């Protein structure tokens, strides 16, 4: 029983950053942007979260800094891809590398001792905590985990139930049509990127103030790419993304669990192999649909 609870908790922790970034990717996916900059935005968020938390000794400022940092990244994306009309793919790659370079450069200059970084607190839900099993699973998680759950609902509502969501999807479906109906598609695209920035910033904050304390070089470690795969696999649906992120998170937790029998390098591969398997299943399903 303890093992199962441990696995589920590990799953939630690993799924959270992927899910948050993928939700951001989902919004830009509906807006019709080929956005591959989640990795860079997340990494930038992680660095600025640690920075804010260290300088102001407060995790609230840390989260604010993370969101601001990721928003700056999003603004750079907007400048190049929307304003200068540069290829979105090249912009994304360039931005990811800029983020990697910049955070590496800054972290070598600013010494942030791990002990002086204030992490985001865990939330213990009174009452529920005492309930066996259920309490252990539902209570005691990092604040961001609960925010993520909220974000899934909000993004789902935003995309499918609001006027903004309709315009968002129209922007991805037929940009010219949206423009001729009097709504600026570019404005929708810009706003979707900003939303993506906020969510990726939060994901970054969770990495450097939740999973571990402190920033290490390149700590996003491909999570942004996995979240991109998640978005593609479910064609952007926020609820689908939640499920697929949980599966990825589960394989990550499983990897840690397998560490007793396998060398750590192999267990670390598990999430990436799981992504490949998921892509394989997806393409098989597509093929069946195509042939039928």
């Amino acid at each position: 029983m303890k093992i199962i609870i441990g696995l589920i908790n590990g799953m939630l922790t690993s799924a959270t950053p992927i899910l948050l970034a993928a939700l951001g990717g989902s919004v830009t996916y509906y807006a019709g942007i080929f956005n591959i900059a989640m990795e860079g935005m997340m990494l930038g968020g992680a660095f600025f979260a640690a920075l804010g938390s260290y300088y102001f000794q407060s995790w609230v400022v840390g989260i604010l800094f993370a969101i601001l940092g990721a928003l700056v990244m999003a603004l750079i994306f907007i400048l190049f891809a929307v304003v200068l009309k540069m290829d979105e793919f090249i912009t994304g790659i360039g931005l990811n590398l800029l983020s990697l370079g910049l955070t590496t450069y800054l972290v070598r200059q600013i010494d942030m001792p791990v002990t002086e970084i204030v992490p985001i607190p865990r939330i213990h839900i009174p009452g529920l905590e005492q309930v066996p099993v259920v309490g252990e699973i539902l209570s005691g998680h990092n604040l961001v985990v609960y925010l993520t759950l909220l974000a899934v609902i909000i993004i789902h509502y935003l995309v499918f139930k609001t006027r903004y969501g309709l315009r968002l999807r129209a922007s991805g479906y037929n940009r010219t049509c949206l423009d001729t109906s009097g709504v600026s598609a570019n404005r929708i695209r810009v706003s979707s990127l900003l939303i993506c920035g906020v969510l990726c910033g939060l994901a970054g904050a969770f990495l450097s103030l939740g999973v571990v304390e402190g920033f290490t070089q390149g700590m996003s470690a491909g999570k942004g790419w996995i979240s991109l795969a998640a978005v593609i696999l479910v064609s952007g649906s926020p609820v689908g993304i939640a499920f697929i992120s949980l599966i990825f998170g589960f394989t990550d937790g499983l990897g840690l669990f397998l560490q007793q029998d396998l060398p750590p390098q192999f267990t670390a591969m598990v999430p990436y192999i799981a992504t490949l398997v998921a892509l394989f299943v997806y393409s098989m399903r597509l093929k069946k649909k195509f042939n039928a």
Partner: protein
Amino acid sequence: MKRKILINLIGILLAFLIGAIVMLIQGKDPILAYASLFEYSLGKKFVYTLNKSVPLVLTGLSATVAFASGPVNLGQPGQLLIGALFAVIGGLYLKLPPFLMIPALLLLAMIGGALWSGIAALCKHFFRMSEFITTLMLNMIADFLTLWAISYPLFEKDANHPQTPPIATAAWMPEWGNLSSSVLVMVIAFGIIWWVMNRTTAGYEWRISGQNSLFSRLGGVNVSKNYVLVMLLTGALAGLAGGLVLMAGPHRFIKDMGANYAWDGIMIAMVANSGVFLTLIFGLFFAVLQTGATGMQLTALVPRELIQVLQAVIVLIVVAGRGYFETLFARREARRKMKGLAK
């Protein structure tokens, strides 16, 4: 042509200007920094710049050939690592004289790289899995796989870090003074790639497929065969880069060996607009920057990691500038024609 050079130069200058602003904010002297950068890499350490350019140009060529022909092969980092792993296995267990040993190991490195890109090619060919994500995932897997290989089966006894024992000296790339013969291999590889891309039917088919896949298919090009070929070739190029890094440099597989070259090839291909000749130029230019970073750190006390930032800024600004200026020129041209019509 002149205009293209001008656009590239303006982009690079703008990027340097941004780098200078960053330095000024930190209270460093940008003119001294840039002067020492170029003095170091183009002056007394020019040979090292050439040596450094080998993996950059080769991974750049790999990405360039891929992007120009259609496949979005982003797997150079992983293919480089697997190539180096194959080379190190050959170097540890083969016993041959140098004139056979070096070609054999280079071949092994190319096979290793092609094998790794081949996995992605097969996934696409049989299951229609986008190579863009599979190559990225294979990068991460290669990272851990090589780390495991040098931590357990190939681990050097009593070493502090994960690393292999040194390869047989017969497999060390010969050096003239400080100039490594790997530069020669790079020049030959560049020549072959240039010839294939510009002077053969295969290269023509690849480029046409890259520009318009449907058109080339209607014209009778076997697109999916070419796809697999290009993936294997570009994987082999990246693998070759890995083998050469290992055989010219540390002569053993050490942890994080490929990390420095990881994405540089892709950046070079992007900034070179997938042109084979421009890839060579930008590969050399990035080598100048990376070698000069040490000089900049020594003389102007600007941390060498700034070059990483500078490279990304160069890519963004040069590519954006190219698009922007081209529209600007096209618009001016159109306006002139309009005036001519009005008369």
